């Protein structure tokens, strides 16, 4: 097992380097010249040949003439800058946001907590509903109520989340006026402590409902099919033949077997809702990572975009790693094979 874990981690590190290099190259395609930018303010006071000389010197000292691999190394903090010091992601220098005029880390601190909170909350809500629902449907397979849920779940996973959001805003915010249309926190109100938390929760209510609803379809279908698979196994027949109570058969004998594929799915799906929350945040105007990312791309604030992109990459890589490990943990064949 230890060998398997090491192997996976090592592999993930390699993938991280490849993907991050790819991102770095991509961002370098953007035509921008920090050296020219630096000299722009004093350009008019200099003679052209002096300016040119200064410009070339500056390019050299900033390391802009070096091959891209070297610059990538510096950006990550593996290779020293021209001045000899290390200053990259490894040294916690995540770039500077030109739009907010702040280091990226400071910009990101508030949105990240909102996004993570939203995603975890939505996951808990969704799991709390889908698992019982999936089991119930599997047990009552073929009944009218099951068919009804199945049709609804097709709607749930076919319709894009932003359409669900529009419909829910219309129903809950415009017609029923239960929730606010958008935003996070009552404007102008300076709540503190518990009151602030509940105010935020009130504003996050509708986005959370939308995110939960959007994930109901796919999840409940998956739980249902895993459960049907488990219920058709021979040991279930044996248990029933022995006269074990139906409740015990379902929740102890069958569910434990169905749990394995579901657990692995949950992690993969948890990553999926990060991109789902991107849409929800932009629709509801919530100040989260997704909205920040869209803003930064729109504002051409590319250092911030790169940082957020790296955040998404790391989240997805770590998620994939955990998924692999769980797979290996629950299914011994995998760790033996590899």
């Amino acid at each position: 097992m230890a060998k398997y874990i090491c192997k996976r981690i090592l592999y993930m590190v390699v993938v991280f380097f490849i993907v991050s290099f790819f991102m770095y190259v991509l961002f370098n395609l953007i035509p921008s010249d920090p050296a020219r930018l630096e000299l722009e303010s004093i350009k008019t006071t200099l003679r052209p040949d002096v300016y040119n000389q200064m410009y070339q010197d500056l390019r050299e000292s900033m390391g802009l003439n070096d091959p891209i691999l070297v610059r990538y190394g510096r950006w990550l903090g593996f290779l020293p800058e021209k001045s000899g010091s290390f200053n990259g992601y490894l040294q916690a220098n995540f770039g500077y946001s030109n739009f907010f005029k702040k280091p990226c880390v400071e910009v990101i601190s508030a949105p990240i907590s909102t996004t993570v909170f939203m995603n975890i909350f939505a996951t808990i809500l969704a799991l709390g509903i889908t698992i019982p629902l999936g089991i119930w449907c599997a047990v009552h397979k073929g009944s009218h109520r099951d068919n009804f849920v199945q049709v609804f779940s097709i709607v749930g996973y076919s319709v894009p989340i932003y359409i669900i959001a529009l419909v829910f805003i219309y129903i809950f915010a415009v017609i029923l006026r239960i929730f606010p249309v958008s935003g996070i926190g009552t404007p102008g109100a300076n709540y503190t402590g518990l009151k602030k938390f509940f105010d935020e929760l009130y504003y996050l209510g509708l986005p959370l409902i939308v995110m939960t609803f959007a994930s109901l379809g796919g999840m409940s279908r998956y739980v249902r099919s895993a459960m049907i698979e488990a219920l058709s196994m021979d040991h279930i027949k044996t248990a029933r033949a022995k006269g074990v109570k139906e409740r015990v058969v379902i929740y102890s004998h069958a569910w434990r077997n169905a749990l394995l594929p579901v657990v692995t799915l949950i992690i993969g799906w948890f990553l999926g809702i990060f991109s789902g929350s991107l849409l929800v945040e932009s629709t509801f105007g919530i100040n989260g990572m997704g909205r920040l990312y869209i803003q930064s791309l729109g504002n051409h604030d590319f250092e911030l975009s790169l940082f957020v992109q790296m955040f998404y990459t790391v989240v997805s890589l770590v998620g994939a790693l955990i998924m692999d490990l769980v797979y290996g943990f629950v299914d011994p064949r995998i760790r033996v094979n590899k």
Partner: protein
Amino acid sequence: MEEKKRKPSFLARLFGNRNTQTDILMEEHIQSPGRMMLSNFLHNKLGMFGLIVFLLIFAFVFIGPYLFQIDLGESDNTQIHVPPINDMLTLPEGLDGNVQDIAAGATFGVGCDKDGHIYIWGYTKITDTIDLRNIPEEVLEAHIVSVAAGYDHVVALDENGQIYVWGNKRLGQDRIPQDLRVSRTKGGKNIIQIEAGYQCSGALTDEGEVYFWGNTNMCDLDVKKEYRGRVVKFAIATYHYCLLLDDGSVVYGGLEKTNAFNRIPEALSSDVVDIAATGDTMAGVKSDGTIIVWGNVARHEGEIPEREGTASAEDDEVVMTAKPLEIYGGRYHYTALMENGDVVSWGDNAHHQTTIPDSVHGAQIETVFAGFYQNYAIDVNGEVHTWGLKGHPLGTDDLGRDILTRIINGGQTTMTVGFVAVVISIIIGVIMGGIAGYFGGKVDMLVMRISEIFGAIPFLPFAMLLSAIIGTRIDVSMRMYLIMVVLGVLTWPATCRLIRAQILAEREKEFVTAAQAMGVREGAIIFRHILPNVLNVLLVEATLEFATCMLTESTLSYLGFGIPLPAPTWGNMLSGANNSIVIQQYWWRWVFPSLIFGVCTICINLIGDAIRDAVDPKSIGR
């Protein structure tokens, strides 16, 4: 191979006679897997429902663009946020056979009957608070003889020469000149003509004096002294007007020195019998029947139909059957009434305002009322014939564009992008998966690592990034291809893994061993024995992937990183809809695109599920 030849054709299998009596064993025996799948699929009610609805939508968006052509540069400030209505040309009952005057507005019509009652129809809400349907009490009581309609105001004239204005008054639309405020009974002027421009109005007295009032911004509404007292008729365009004088000449009455309307053609200095104006052009009819158009002629207003019988008229569809007597102007079109009681229209036909119904050609038309995109023709029996803009079946958006047209054309884009992306993804996936599954070993290892790298890239953010970085540097159509390629290239790993697993599984099966034992060539084994087994799964995957790609494209467009405006897609039609005002008041802007898109993806998923059930009967109910 021999087995295949004996099979009936695909059509015969679909529609052929299957009533031959067979016992269960025979039935079991002759049913090939393909036929079984087909019958499984045909018997799946949900799947068939999905297929039929999808095909309908497909036909709708791929045939529709020929009927509803889109003009990408289109924007019309007179048609902003019009709800789904279809009764802009439907006259109220009271006007039937009793029309005194009709004036056509942008989205509404206003008219009065011979008894002096006023009627208004169509979409009359100008803003939240201003509704033209709220006709002032005094107007309802007065005996109205003439009406005129501007963009957001209505002018009415009663038998006593009193002028009434209602609607939007904020820009001076009701600032009627002092001279005209006195009714005739108290010694006021005798008004013979009223007209309305965009936000301005004009009136002509029987003494040949014209008066203009209203929003003077950008307007040239002053009257030169030398023309005062000589005017017989005036025509008002959006911001300018021209005058027909008592000596039969046409003049530009305003004070502006150089504009498009100033340069009146030489021919119009005498013998002119009628004048009219569209939004940006003016036209005059001479007594010999020649029509001359001048101004900013940009929307085919100058393409006057030829007289019947002339050499150049032979190939034209629309011809003038007689000498034109009177001319009327809409916003971008003209309608002329001819000697023989026939009418002809020309100009911009985006709202069918020049498509004259056949019933009109048969009738003896007495007079025509034209304005904006509407035409009303009254024949000798008092019957009203209408043509032009009836309304927008699904409403319009914030730039006055018809939602139905955009849904149809946007659907075509969305489906094309989704389809091409799926094809790219499937091609890469099949090749990579095939290589990995077939060769195995180190190649397999390498391909799977590559696919995992692609899988590790967070999809949506990355696609947005690519679109933001590369997309800004290329033109719109290239950007569409970019989206297709990005979608295809980023989604292949799933297909690759599926194909690889399938090929690995099939390779180990007995029938492959049997084929190998019989000495079948390697290539034949792959293509004839393994691939058909993979195809079923591939079909399911491709169908579900198609829905996913459409979703992703629309998601990107919704966020503003996909197909850029003004080209419509189902996603970017919704991108302006996520604020409470649109959601609440302009519901048609998001309900219809959402509805058709939701139905479409649901149907595709239903089809995919049905194919899966048909291909693998074991999965039914899972």
